């Protein structure tokens, strides 16, 4: 079996004639009906969920239709800003593959008030990496009201809720 291909080492790649291209990929994404309202809720310091009348799930992040039942949704529910860690990681690599001194701790957090297993992605803070556990109870730490703009980052991170198991 013939297996072809010329592999370039890093220096060869640097020396080879190359064409450089910097595309300008800028986007203005429409938040849509459901996420738009969710972001408004975040600005007001609330986490909003939405309920499907058919399967009875309370969902977050909210959406305009239930993907299992394929029906439109409009029953909004205010959820708590506490939850449990479903899974987490301790990341030492940034988005552009640089090494981080202080690790980031992303986690999937099941929000209290939503159906079981329904969570959102966010970061954990004010906690040592070795102390994070699956099942840990956490609470959102919000930006000051004047600094909130209606974004997922209006919540700075979730921190452990002491004294609760």
């Amino acid at each position: 079996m013939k297996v072809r291909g010329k592999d370039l080492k890093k220096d060869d790649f640097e020396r080879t004639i190359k064409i450089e291209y910097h595309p300008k990929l800028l986007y203005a994404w429409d938040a849509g009906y459901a996420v738009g309202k969710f972001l408004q809720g975040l600005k007001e310091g609330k986490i909003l969920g939405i309920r499907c009348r058919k399967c009875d799930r309370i969902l977050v992040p909210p959406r305009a239709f239930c993907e299992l039942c394929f029906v439109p949704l409009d029953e909004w529910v205010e959820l708590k800003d506490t939850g449990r860690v479903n899974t987490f990681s301790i990341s030492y690599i940034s988005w552009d593959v640089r090494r981080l001194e202080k690790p980031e701790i992303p986690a999937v957090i099941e929000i209290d008030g939503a159906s079981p297993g329904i969570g959102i992605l966010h970061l954990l803070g004010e906690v040592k990496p070795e102390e994070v556990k699956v099942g840990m109870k956490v609470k959102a730490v919000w930006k000051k009201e004047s600094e909130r703009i209606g974004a997922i980052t209006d919540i700075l991170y979730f921190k452990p809720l002491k004294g609760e198991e």
Partner: protein
Amino acid sequence: MKPYRKVAVIGAGLTKFMRRALETGRELSFYAAKEALSSSGLKFKDIQSVVMATAPDAFDGVHMKGEYLADGAGGFKRPYMRSYVGGGSGVFAIIHGWYMVASGMFDTCLVVAEEKMSSCQPHPQAAFNSIYDHTLERPLGVNLLWIFALEMQRYMHVHKISEEEIALVSVKNKKNALDHPSAQVAEEVTVKDVLNSEIMAWPVRRLMVSPTSDGAAAIVLAAEHIARRVSEKPVWIEGIGWCLDTSFWTNRDLYYPDYVEKAARMAYEMAGIKEPSKEIHIAEPYDPFAYKELHHMEGLLLCKRGEAAKLTAKGVTQRNGDLPVCPSGGLLGVGNPIAAAGLMKVCEIFWQLRGEAGKRQVPGNPKRGVAQAWGDLMQVGTVVVLGI
């Protein structure tokens, strides 16, 4: 069982899998397509249709990538379609090719898969970040490694699996790949080496991750009457299946790949397989990360949930074990040019069933194999069952 035309794989070809290829995407596609064609016994004029699987345009940096690659893949002035479902594309391509021939529309189909990730700077991973929701996730400074780390953590937590058990997969696959001519990152490592490698996003360590790669793979499909005429040992496509789960990944329990099971059931039903763990002789599940091989073995119903790690520790998944898994060396050993990686696994089953896998050959005359690919945001499972 509905009456379909029987379709066989009669040729296969691969390029080297490399970190940075000199060749353009088109040239890589040509190498693989040419090799597959030469090994099939057919001439180029006998090819009636072409399917091209290639993952995000953002890697090669060519919009309309499918069209760009067409002439290198033999798609010049022939019915040509692109197949794309993220990392699952490699196996999705053979499913797509199966439709071209089984429908009776074409008697032959050349299926090619290509990826050139090295063009993307500063690192291909940056292009991957667009997989996350732009409004609710990207502003958190996301990183592709997070989803894998989060899924691996959940899997380990639910089944109480240790890092050591997962490291065994890296050890096995990287060693198996030493016998693969295309391999990019084959090497002998120990469990200790894997556990000492740098933490990228805990619990993921560097030696548990497959590299970014450039490469291409291709196979030739033919309808029964042609396959029997030109090929001594056609390998039949016995079952196909694919399934997509919701993109609301934070609403799913990540410890089990439900979508892989659904895809596998679809393929097994078509193939008439009732007990996969006994009737499948070789498995090539998608292994971009070490824990993924175990995760997918369970999704493919090759063992009970939570048991894959135990089977690996017992040596069952070695080449001379009862159920060889990734005898090729998988993505961990050979490389991961996204779409081409899945098709590489199909090529491996092809060669294994024909007894042509050389040093990688699994003993005992295997008759049936399953290849599986996975992709998107922990979303898609694509499965194909091949038999001889």
